Structure formats: C-alpha cells, structure tokens
C-alpha cells in the first residue's frame, strides 16, 4: 500500500466517523425538539441558538460526573459492556455509502468507511453484537431491574433479528437480478438503484421514467417489515421494553452513570441513525438522485448526493421520533406475538413470493 492510498483510507474513515458524531449530536437535540413540538412544548432553548448545543452541554456534564461502580457488579463485564454498545454502533455506519465518490488527484475517494464485499453480513453481525452489550450490562450489574431489562432485550433481539434478516434477504435477492450477479456490498446495491424504472421496464415508460429505480417499489412489504424490525432492534418506542423507564427504572443501564451511561446513550442514537441510513441505502436508493452535472458547478453536484442521502435518512429518523411521541409501549406478550406470529411468517411468505417471481422471470415458467 502506498502513502496516497493509506491517506485516502484514513480520510474516508475520519470523514465517516466525524459525520456520524456530528449528526448524532444533532439527532439527540432534534429528537427532543420534535417530541417537544408534538407535546406543545418548545424543547431545549437555552444552550446556543434554539438549544442546539444542549447535547454538547449534557455530554460535558456526563463527562465530568463520577462513574459509580456498585459493589455487586461483575467488574470486567461491567466495564466492557458500554464499549460493546458503542463500537458496533459506529462500525455499522462505516459500511454505509453516504455520498458519490470523488477524485483527489488520481485517487478515488469513496464516501464510505469501508466497502466490504460482505457488507450486509457485517451489519447483521454487528447489530447482533449490540445485544451482547445489553445482556452483559444487565447481568453484570448484579441488580434486578437491569437483569429484567437484559432478559427482555435478549428475547426481543432474537425475535426481531430473524425478521430483519429475512427482509434483507429478499432485498439482496431482488438486487441480484438488477445487475451482474448477487452482491452484499452496499456500494454495489446503491449503484444498482441508479436511474429510473423507465430504463428497465419499457412498458408504461412515460410514467415509470419519473419513478426512481429504488428497491422500495418492488419490495414494499420487505421495507415495512425491515422498518418495524429496526425499531425493535434499536430498542426504541414502542419496542423499548429493554429500558422501560416506568417499570424498570432505566432497564439495562440503571446501574451505569457518568461516561459509561453516556456511551450507552450515544450508542442508541448512533444505532438509530445508522439503521435508518441502512434502510435508506437498501430501499430508498442511498445517495442516488438527480445531480444536474451539466447545469450546476461541480462542487454543488458533488455535494447533492450526500444531501439526498441525508434527506432520505432523516425522513426515516423523523418517523422514529414520530412513533416514539405517539405510541404507548407494547406489552411483552404483544411484542412476542408481533415478532413471531406476524413479522417472521410475513417475511417468510414475502421471501418465498419474491423468490418465485424472480425465478420465473429468470428461468421462465416451469411448463415452458
């Protein structure tokens, strides 16, 4: 590896990491603002203009607070758990392409932390790792409320990860028909969503040429299942049984304070953003969109894909906030019923259906 190549890799990682940190700080503030608006309040207003520095102030406060270690904790795991929450959360976003590649000299800089050819598998693996953080935090705290939160977290994660994975499989299979063979690389999946449906399907071309070639249109059921599953996966309302303030104090992070609590908090919001980013990448075409390369200066049309990516992601993030402000928490049995009796059979049925359609289109009808 030459020095310029190394520089490009370092630049990609730093850019992605920086973007994620800044956006997470904004997301925490944004959620408070959005939820406040839905409750006829103002939300934070004092720190900075419209309270935008409130998260920074909160973070600084947590940074200077004492990290209390209760006497009965299992110390090694207790210290490890917050890191297990934060590190996978950041690694997930490293897979997401968030802008059009551009050139510095002869080096191409892809705006993506790393383009693994097993990107989606890596994402699934990392989002499963986040469950370990909840389980280990709850168990090692040596206290009953965190333990209850951890037990719920395990069951919830197992139930919803299956639906999440099945919905992803449907998209990957569909995506395989849109290009040269199947792929798990997110950059490749985004590339295959460029253009409009009019390019692919000649019939109805006058209408379809205005419909972007996003996976959401053929895979709408998979999108709905995927979206419900990522809400459960990130432990957000109405699936936030893991935290459940009203019943379990703070759930798995009851015994955590100071910086260790801040890391769980950070991980939650990083997870929200990166999961929404993945949903936007898989179903809403990622950074694809009209860039007007001929009409606009190169700088602006280079920025535009990132803007499209952020708009799509924030649309989904807003729905997260909206649901949180609206819906009451599900009961535990309702959560399990929804997961095992609705989402998983639904995802399986959709997978079979979309497999059949793909197979018939590829190999022809069985009688022909």
């Amino acid at each position, binding site marked *: 590896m030459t020095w310029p190549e190394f520089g490009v890799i370092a630049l990609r990682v730093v850019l992605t990491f920086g973007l994620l940190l800044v956006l997470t700080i904004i997301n925490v503030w944004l959620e408070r603002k959005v939820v*406040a*608006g839905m409750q*006829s309040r*103002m939300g934070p207003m004092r720190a900075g203009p419209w309270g935008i520095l409130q998260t920074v102030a909160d973070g600084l406060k947590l940074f200077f607070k004492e990290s209390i270690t209760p006497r009965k904790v299992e110390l090694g795991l207790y210290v490890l758990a917050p890191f297990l929450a934060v590190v996978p959360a950041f690694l997930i976003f490293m897979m997401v392409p968030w802008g059009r590649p551009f050139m510095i000299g002869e080096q191409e800089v892809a705006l993506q932390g790393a383009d693994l050819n097993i990107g989606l598998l890596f994402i699934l693996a990392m989002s499963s790792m986040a469950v370990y953080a909840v389980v280990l935090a709850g168990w090692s705290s040596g206290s009953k409320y965190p333990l209850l939160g951890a037990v719920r977290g395990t069951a919830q994660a197992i139930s919803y990860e299956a639906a999440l994975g099945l919905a992803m499989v449907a998209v990957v299979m569909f995506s395989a028909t849109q290009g040269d063979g199947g792929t798990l690389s997110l950059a490749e999946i985004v590339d295959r969503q460029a253009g409009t449906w009019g390019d692919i399907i000649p019939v109805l071309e006058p209408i379809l040429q205005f419909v972007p070639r996003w996976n959401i249109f053929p895979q709408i059921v998979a999108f709905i299942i995927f979206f419900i599953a990522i809400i459960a996966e990130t432990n957000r309302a109405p699936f936030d049984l893991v935290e459940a303030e009203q019943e379990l104090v703070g759930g798995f992070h009851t015994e955590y304070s100071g910086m260790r609590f801040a890391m769980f908090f950070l991980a939650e919001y990083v997870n929200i953003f990166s999961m929404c980013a993945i949903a936007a990448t898989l179903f809403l075409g990622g950074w694809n969109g009209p860039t007007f390369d001929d009409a606009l200066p190169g700088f602006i049309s280079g920025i535009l894909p990132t803007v499209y990516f952020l708009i799509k992601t924030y649309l989904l993030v807003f729905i997260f906030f909206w649901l949180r*402000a*609206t*819906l009451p928490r599900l009961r535990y049995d309702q959560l399990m019923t929804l997961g095992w009796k609705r989402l998983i059979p639904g995802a399986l049925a959709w997978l079979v259906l979309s497999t059949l359609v793909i197979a018939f289109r590829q190999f022809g009808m069985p009688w022909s």
Partner: protein
Amino acid sequence: MGLVSEIWKGMKVTGTTMLKTIAIGPFGGSELVTTQYPKETRQKPQRFHGRHVLNRYPDGMEKCIGCQLCAGACPANCIHVRGMDNDPAHPTSPGERFGFVYEINMLRCIFCALCVEACPTEAITMTHLFEMSTTNREDAIYTRDELLMNRDGSVPHMFPDDPLADLDELLVADGWVRATASSGMAAYEGVEAWQATPGPADWAPEPSQEILDARSPGDLDG
C-alpha cells in the same frame, strides 16, 4: 387493518400538534404552552399571592398598629410581631402603638393571605413578586426593614442588583382579595374597599361601619 388505522389516528394528532407548535408555518405557535420564563413572564392573575408588603398612609405614617392579629391568624405560625407605644411627639403610626418588630419567615409562609384578611388597618398586603429564592436560611426571614414600603410609596427589593429583579411586581397589590370578604355583609359584595396598588393611599377614607351597614347594596355605586 384496525391496528394500522388506530396508529395512524394517533400519529395524526401528534403530527398536527407539531405543525401547530413549531413557530413556522401558518399555525405557528398557536398550541405552544411554554413560556421562556426569565426572558418573558406571564400575566399573573389579579389576586396572585406574592411577597408581603407593609403599607403606609399618604402622609408617611405606618399603617401597622402592632396588634398581632396577623400573627394570630397565620396558620403556619410564620409571622412574629411585637408592638410598641408610639412616641407622642414623633408618632410612627396614627394609633397608640406601632409594629416595632415585624418578621415573616418566608420558608414557612404558605401565602394564604389570611394575615391580609385579619389586618384591621390594611397594613399588610401582598404584591405580585414571587422570586424569593435565597442561598441562606436567614435571608428568608423578612424583617420590618425589608417589608415596609418607602415613604414615596415604592417597595424595597431584597436583591435590587439581581438582573432578573422586577421592581414593578412589588408595586402591584393582590387587588380585590377582600372584595367579597370583610364583614360578611352582603352590602360589601363586589365592593373594592381598597386600592389595587400599594403606595400612599389617596382615596377617600372609608365610611364608618355604621354607615356601611345601613347602606343597601344599590347605594354602593354612588
């Protein structure tokens, strides 16, 4: 699809509330309930019970006669009054005695205004000031010097250097507290028997009790 429509019903409520709350757009701010407190304050109700003030007559004499009725009426036992005979050459109050010691413990006070009701000379009234937090328990015991209004009718503020101190609030009395009270006579109902602001009283002295009792409610307007 009952579940989905129920969820959508709920989301419509929160969604429209947000559009009406956020200060942009046609409905901007119409549902907002927050007040940016120290920067903007709300209009207080007219009968708001705030900090007490000891009033004076227009000629500068103190109204308090040291009778301790307020201390007796106080359900929280937070008022401490001791009277003293007036110096005949330089009287402090028009009567025989005046309030020599007058202390209110604001940590105990429940702001019920029973002292105001009990006062026979309307010497103690309440203002609209409620920002009375202190960092010291002793500062919460208000003495005569802090409670008594100045000779020009202004009211001393405990922390005049505080940037948030609103001196005007001290000039607003909790008007009409006794509009329906006093002697319990129907003739007093709706009668504003005192002015709404502290400061030297410049209204005609009240008629004697016999004259008021003899009146019928219809005469009160005149």
